[in-house]
């Protein structure tokens, strides 16, 4: 079964790509890895007139550290992120979350930029990037702007990237010294699925074992990936005791706005948020 025919542009620079996007001719879509877009085209849920493929733009799949900041090109594959030594040692939360997406042959092809622009509510990398205070770089034919990750997801499968713009990469600042982090995903069917809900957290304990810095983010818990600010407030400045982790889990479940779908009801998602936020915080509190 063929895909519906489309014109294909293969620009060799970001400038050339945004020039094509600026023309806004018919329905134009950017294709990165294609692991999300091609299945939706196969099902004819979208039938673009034109695809702009980014695979020939040099440097877009670079992963490098610059002055302590991790710079990730939009076309970096999730597999490359998951196995990158610097990412694994300094941003383990991101390596862990990228390595939990789908299966090896999807991670080899799927890109971080594509994952963000698809804006799946149950994305694995998104909660990690929300915890890491990531900045998203977006370009158009005039120049580049930076969008804080907290303002990037604007609605159900929707982002701050306009039709004439493209995501070029993300910048991830250094993780606070002594930070502990983790990502858990709950898959009721099979491990390679997108999660029913996912939870990422990053925290720093002070000498008295009280929570200093704390960031908690959820996938599958609302129409977009989200920071759980009320859950963070419930643990900030406190020890991660049984009661405190229960309070945080209750807060996260209360602030979540889950949807019901074939994978699970909103009530079930809320209950699993309660369970997995608590489990993750307990494990981070007891870990070294």
């Amino acid at each position, binding site marked *: *079964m063929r895909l519906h*025919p489309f014109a294909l542009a293969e620009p060799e620079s970001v400038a050339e790509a945004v020039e094509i996007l600026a023309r806004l001719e018919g329905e134009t879509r950017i*294709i990165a890895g294609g692991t999300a877009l091609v299945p939706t085209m196969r099902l004819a849920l979208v039938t673009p007139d034109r695809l702009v*493929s980014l695979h020939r733009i040099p440097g877009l799949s670079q992963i490098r550290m610059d002055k302590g900041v991790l710079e990730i090109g939009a076309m970096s594959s999730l597999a490359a992120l998951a196995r990158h030594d610097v990412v694994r040692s300094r941003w383990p939360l991101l390596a862990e979350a990228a390595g939990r997406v789908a299966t*090896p*042959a999807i991670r*080899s092809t799927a890109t971080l930029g594509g994952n963000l622009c698809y804006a799946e509510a149950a994305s694995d990398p998104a909660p990690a990037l929300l915890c890491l205070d990531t900045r998203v770089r977006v370009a158009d034919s005039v120049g580049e702007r930076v969008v804080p990750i907290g303002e990037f997801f604007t609605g159900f499968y929707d982002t701050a990237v306009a039709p004439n713009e493209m995501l070029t990469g993300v910048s991830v600042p250094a993780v606070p010294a002594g930070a502990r982090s983790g990502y858990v995903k709950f898959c009721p069917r099979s491990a390679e699925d997108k999660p029913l809900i996912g939870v990422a957290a990053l925290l720093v304990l002070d000498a008295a074992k009280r929570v200093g810095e704390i960031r908690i983010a959820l996938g599958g818990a609302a129409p977009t990936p989200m920071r759980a600010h009320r859950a963070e407030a419930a643990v900030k400045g406190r020890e991660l005791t049984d009661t405190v982790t229960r309070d945080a889990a209750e807060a996260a479940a209360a602030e979540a706005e889950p949807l019901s779908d074939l994978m699970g009801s909103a009530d079930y998602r809320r209950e699993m948020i309660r369970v997995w936020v608590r489990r993750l915080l307990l494990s981070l509190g007891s870990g070294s």
Partner: protein
Amino acid sequence: MIAIDFTLNNRPCRIEVPAHWTALDLLRDGLALNGTKYGCGEGVCGTCTVLLDGEPVRSCLVLASRLRDRVVVTVEGLESDGEPDRLQTAFARAGAVQCGFCTPGMLLSARALLAANPSPTEHDVRAALAGNLCRCTGYTKIIEAVLAAAGGR
């Protein structure tokens, strides 16, 4: 139509392909390499898996134009001089093939695993093959075959 050059099973390949064709369309319908199967067409079942620069990819999800200047290995590229490679031999010996539809994808996912990790544990094998569905074998003999090939037996 777009013209692409790439390396296919150790040989140079130059061909013109419609822009909307996937790599799988090109392999099966443009090049008559029918070892690579069309299963779900959505990247879930794994039977269309081929190696692109050594990494397993779903050929049903990758546009043919992405193959330009890269190195592709399909199941037809595993044998040498008409002899099956050690994974193929191990699959046959272990009885890891029943209907055979998933086998090309299994072999290439396993090939990528052994290239990156020559001495995998059973867990490593299960993780590497997680995206390759088999409805016949129950996986046990497939995993035994990959472990046997890794052990050189």
